[in-house]
């Protein structure tokens, strides 16, 4: 088994096509996870147990089942109910929902971390609940959460090869179809690893910066 640089050069453009899809899926998935997580966290804080309990159950359910199973469900089972999503959309929804349940915990911790006095002060100033959330609580809760959220997004990025199971032509699937066509695994799969490593390392450097910038609670 020998390494063939000419083959690497030849397959590089195809792999870069795959990287693009991988990055798009991660970015869209991250946005969705950030929104879904916030909604779950806020709803779960509701004092009305009829609202908070079902949401808690749904979140635990999603967190307790494998992402791959959820992807299969969204892609292959939902069409039976009349919902046919394109592979990428199905993948982004799968990633977003799954990671949304994790980011919800980050939000919860961040919101709980805001001192009680802030809530009481908001009430004393006669602020509406909306004003309290958007003007008082969130601006204080969000910055310390940013590094933890980014951490989940990097984890999500490394889970995107699962999307190849639902025919998304992302990096892993491109590499597999190259391997299938040329009977060589060593170069395509090594390159996949290298791409993920490089992007992860760059992201981790960014994460360190975010931690220094926002991580301190004062």
């Amino acid at each position, binding site marked *: 088994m020998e390494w063939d640089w000419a083959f690497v050069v030849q397959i590089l453009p195809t792999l870069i096509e795959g990287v693009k899809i991988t990055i798009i899926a991660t970015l869209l998935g991250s946005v969705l996870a950030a929104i879904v997580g916030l909604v779950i966290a806020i709803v779960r804080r509701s004092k009305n147990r009829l609202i908070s309990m079902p949401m808690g159950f749904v979140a635990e359910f999603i967190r307790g089942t494998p992402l791959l199973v959820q992807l299969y469900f969204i892609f292959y089972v939902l*069409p039976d109910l009349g919902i046919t999503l394109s592979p990428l959309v199905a993948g982004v929804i799968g990633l977003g929902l799954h990671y949304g349940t994790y980011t919800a915990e980050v939000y919860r911790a961040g919101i709980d971390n805001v001192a009680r006095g802030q809530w009481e002060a908001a009430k004393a100033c006669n602020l509406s609940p909306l004003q309290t959330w958007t003007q008082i609580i969130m601006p204080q809760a969000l910055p310390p959460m940013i590094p933890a959220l980014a951490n989940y997004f990097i984890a999500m990025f490394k889970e995107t090869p699962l999307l190849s199971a639902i*025919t998304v032509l992302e990096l892993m699937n491109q590499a*597999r*179809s190259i*391997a299938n*066509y040329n*009977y060589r695994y060593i170069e395509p799969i090594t390159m996949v690893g290298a791409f993920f490593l490089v992007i992860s390392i760059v992201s981790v450097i960014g994460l360190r910066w975010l931690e220094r910038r926002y991580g301190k609670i004062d």
Partner: protein
Amino acid sequence: MTKLQTISALLGAAALSALVSSMPAKADEALDKLKAQGFARIAIANEPPFTAVKADGSVSGAGPDVARAVFKKLGVNDVVASISEYGAMIPGLQAGRHDVVTAGLFMKPERCNAVSYSEPILCDAEAFLVKKGNPKGFKSYQDIAKDEKATIGAPGGGTEERLALEAGVPRERVIVVPDGQSGLKMLQDGRIDTYSLPVLSINDLVKKANDPNIEVIAPVQGAPVYCDGAAFRKGDTALRDEFDKVLAEMKKSGEFAKIVEPYGFSAEAALSTTRDKLCAAK
């Protein structure tokens, strides 16, 4: 020697012996090794009638049945199958994960370069599975290439994927489908316009699906009839020759026809052509 040194010496010896055993076996060594382990490891795809895993886990299908019969005559009592993607079979064979591929992996020149094929075993033409009435009027892979919105599902690394790409269908319109059931489902859901497999596989799939809204277009125009053979590692030609010898006897005695014909394959087709012809075909 300290205990640690003993352990590392043992590990070194184990690594060395593993290395030696993974080297290409010479002449009858490969067969002797199979006899010693008592079974041959085959790669299959679970695509009836070529290869099939029954509900109880036993392996059948025309390919494994022929391989089992041939290996029995060679003194290897059984075959143990692992299910693999078509594209992963040849790399898996080269990596020593399988001893032989008997999965309806059709002979094509580039595959012949990568492995040692036996003489032809299972022959079949290509077919399309489409929605009832063939709304887009597909008759050949070129028709799909011409229609700018048409998508075709094909097994990853399979002959159909290659045929579609070679006919000029762009990569993003050739959807790699993991297995027959998903392909059928994706067609029914309208995710793909056609699903391409060999005729007998499609017929088997349609029979199981029992869906009046789909139909089979067979054979695909311009796509040749292909035959598979048992694929051995490039270096295992001695084992392949032994396999061929027994296979030729079985073809002559009619035993071969008795195995493949109940599955719907034509023994005549396999007898009428040779490996050399199929490997040279473009």
